[in-house]
Structures are given as C-alpha cells and as structure tokens.
C-alpha cells in the first residue's frame, strides 16, 4: 500500500486515491502512416516491463485527477522520484 506524493497536490496520499497508468515515456509515433506493422506492435503492445527502477505513470483518480510520472523500484516498491509531465522526459530521466 503505497504512499504517493502527488506532484500537483503536493501531498503524500494513500495508494487508494491513485490508479496506475502504465509504463512512462511511450511516445505516440509522429509519423503513423509510415510505420511498419512491427513498429506499431512495438508501440501498442510491447513493454520493457523492467525489473528494477522503473518510470511509470500514475493518475490521482480520487484527487486532482491529473496524470504524473513516478520512478519506482519494481523490486522493493520504493518510490524514488515523482514528477509532473515535462519536468522529466525520456531524454533527461535519471
């Protein structure tokens, strides 16, 4: 039962208020009509499913209802970082 710091509400709240929303930094392709089937499959279905420190998205469902980024260990469940979209990107993430 996680305790998550919502970067918008600036408060530590119980996991019950949030919903997980999948792996982070999966960018929608810029050139959809040029994409091969393999590239589409990779974008839609394939995931890193990383064991270790993992960037993911959460949404504050029963709070501000905003999506944000969380870096969490999938081994210890420790939350290492939270960020609003834009604050951290796939280029500058730790």
């Amino acid at each position, binding site marked *: *039962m*996680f*305790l998550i710091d919502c970067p918008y509400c600036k408060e530590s709240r*119980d996991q019950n208020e949030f919903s997980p929303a999948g792996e982070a930094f999966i960018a929608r392709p810029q050139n959809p009509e040029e994409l091969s089937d393999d590239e589409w499959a990779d974008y839609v279905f394939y995931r890193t499913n990383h064991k270790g420190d993992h960037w993911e998205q959460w949404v504050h469902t029963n709070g501000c209802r905003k999506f944000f980024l969380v870096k969490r260990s999938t081994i*210890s*469940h420790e*939350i290492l970082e939270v960020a609003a979209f834009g604050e951290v990107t796939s280029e500058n993430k730790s």
Partner: protein
Amino acid sequence: MRLKNHKSDYIDQSEALSFIFNNRSYKGYKGDTLASALIANDVLFFARSFKYGRKRGLMGSGVEEPNALVSLEIGGRYTPNLKATEVMLYDGLSAVSSSNPNSLDFRALIKPLHRFMPAGFYYKTFIKQKVWAMVEDSLRALSGFSKAPTEKDEDLYDHIFHHAEVLIVGGGVAGITAALEILNNSKTTRVILVDERAHLGGELFNEFKSDDTAISWHHDSVNKLLEFKNVANSRLKLLSRSTAYAWYDHNYIEVLQTNATGESMVSGNTQVARKVLHKIRTKEVILATGAHERPMLFETNDLANIMLSQSVRRYLNEFGVISGKDVILYGNNDSIYGTAIDIKDNEINCKVIDVRASGSESEIVLKAKKLGIEVLQGYAVLKAHGTNLVKGIEISKVEMQGKKWKLSGSSKKLNCDLLASSGGFNPVVHLDCHCGAKTFFDEDSQAFLPQKERKNRQVCGSISAIGFWKDAVIDAKK
C-alpha cells in the same frame, strides 16, 4: 490444578465464571484463558492428532499453541479453530474440541499400519482417476479440524485509520521502554503501542517473585504510560489484545484488535464491535515482538503434558495453575532453571536435566542447586514413556565429540507427570519479513535474527536474542 495461596495480579478469584467444555461444566476465574481454567480443573486432553487421532495436551500458553484447537459457541456466534490458550474466559462460555479426545476415534486403529503409510502416501496411492474420484470425498471428511460455521455472523466489526510517527509492536519490557523513551524525549511524536496480551509487560511477571526491582519497574513504567495516555489529545495509543498481522509497503500496517472471542456483544440497545481492524500508517516501526520458545526433540515428545518450559512458568505465575505434581525440566539453556525455581517455590517436586555438561555454571544454576533442586548435567532425554500422558522418561549421559553428540553409559528411567522443555528461543521475525526484509542465522544465539539495517525500522529486546529483561531495557533505550 490450581495452587492454593497463589497471588496473581491477573486472576480475580472473587469472580468465579462457569463454562462448558466438551459437554461438561467447569468453573474458572476472571483473567483465566480457557486453557488455564481447564488446567485448573485437571483437564489434560484438548484434542486429537490429525492422522492417527492420538490424544493431545497443551504445549504452549499463547499464540504458539499447536494442539488445543476448539470451536466456540453455536449458531451466529459459532467460531471454528480457536486456540484455547487465546480464548479469554467469560461466564457461560461453551467450547468443543475440534477433535474430541474423549469420544471413540477409529483413527487409532490405523496406527499399526503406519509402516505402510510413508511420507507422500496419497501421491503414491489412488493413482487411477476413477478410484481417486470414488475415495476423495471420504478422505476429505477425515481431514479438517473444527466444523465449518453454518449460520450468519451476528456480530459487528469496525475499522479505524491511524497515523503515527512511531508504531511499536510488542508491549513487553523492550516495547514499554521504547515507548517511554520516545514520549519523554519528544513533545510531538505520536506513538502506537500494540500488544497481543490483555496486560502490558510480556514475560516480565515471571521475574516478580524473585526480583522486587522488576515489580517496581513494571508498576512505574505502566503508570507512566497511562499518564501519557490519560490526557487530552494524548500522543499515545495503547492497543491490547491486538495482533499486527500484516506489514505492507511504505509502512502501512494492519492490526486486528479482539474485543471478544465468543461472548455476546449485545447489551440492551447497544452492540459493540467484536473485532476492530486498525489501519496504521507510520513513519517508523519498532519491533519488540520477542521470541518463541523451541521444544527439545526426542522420541514420542508429542504425549500430553510435554510442554514448553516458559509456558509452564506462565501458567504457574500468571494463572496459578500447573498440570503436574512431579515435574522434570529439560533443556539446553538457563531459562529452565527459572521455571524450576518457581515450581520449587510452590513446593512441587521438580528435577532439571540439562544437556550441557557441568562446569562454568551461571548464577541461576547455582541458585537452583542451592535450593535443593536435583540437577542432572550432561544428560539427554531419549524417549518419553506413557500411552497418552507422559509417565516417565528415559535419559542417558551425552557428550560432544567433535561436532556430534554421542551417548555414553547406559540409559536410565525417571518418573514424571509433566515434562517442560526449552531448546532455546526463536525471535519473532515474521512481521519483519512481510515486506521484503531477510533474516540471517546467528551462530551465537543459534537462531534466525532480523536483517540488521532496514529503513524506518528498529528492533529491540529478545527479537534480537536478548534474554535478560534489564538488558532489554538498555537495548530499547538506544
């Protein structure tokens, strides 16, 4: 039997309670558990074993009890599989053994066939699917303990959220000390202290007879805790008869508090919750969960009245009851001498058999000898005699040769009607392991101890293999 002239703060002899166990009525006192009240009434068999239906007696005195499974009450308050050691006595209680030791049991008939029933018997037999389908239902009927409930629960339950800076699990010496230390040293820290028993103090009451400082320490400390508790906006919450049973991520801990096991919670127009689930989010957890005693191992050590030494001691000191008149203490550590001295104090026969060879005895061993307790050092129990109840034991001299124990000399027999053993202590590390922490094996204490460093978690007291209560106080103050 119940000892005459025994004084205990926990038993109120002015209030007799009547109860029914396996269709016979008995009397006990307020403060008794079902187990202690039955010992007082000389009931020694509580259930039957799972496979051969052997009669089983008590082994422990609390949550560690494996044998004394009972069901409580009927109808909407029927509760299966409770431990008699954890059921607080109330007037009108009615309990039934999960497997009645007094009725005929045909499972004993298959005992002579045991050599044809090796480990994994069911994997090796009924291999044809059709045959298995035919026998499965009748085999299922043999298994299981109490009957399942058949009616809707008539009681209510509740849950409460708590937030605190510190949660202390275990209200023994270490837990009390840690709580006072934190409350005294801070003006804002909120503390929750959780304990399984009805009274704070854990095993300390065992020292009361021999150590006046233990009494005054206990008295003062509990009073100080109550002072913290009995003020407006108190920073301290005391949860007794409560078990911290789950530790989830980010220090979210669930504690179940028992207000009643089987008694009716309805009085007039009000109904009180039977159990309360406390959902606790805390910054720090202090584990002062203590240790469970391990038994010594020997042949037929499952006879009734072969118990744990600390449990015999607890029954004696807390409840004033004992289930034998001729007691043998057997173990590999000093704790058995404490039990022996308490038994001797009550003018009951007892002997001590210590596996360890003589020489370099500690103070308590010398004290036991001085009191005239017969002590056999360097002996091991090979076997217990008796059909259902222990009647005697066979012992032999042993010595360590290299890394192995070797028997030396011929064995001899001793009579007894109660054997209490202690094979050391296992720290209660379970809760710590819920959320990914590991244990490590400590050669000195011959036990698994909790992982040394862990974020937002401290341990103190006998969970880290500290035996003496004053050492636990010092440990907790750190």
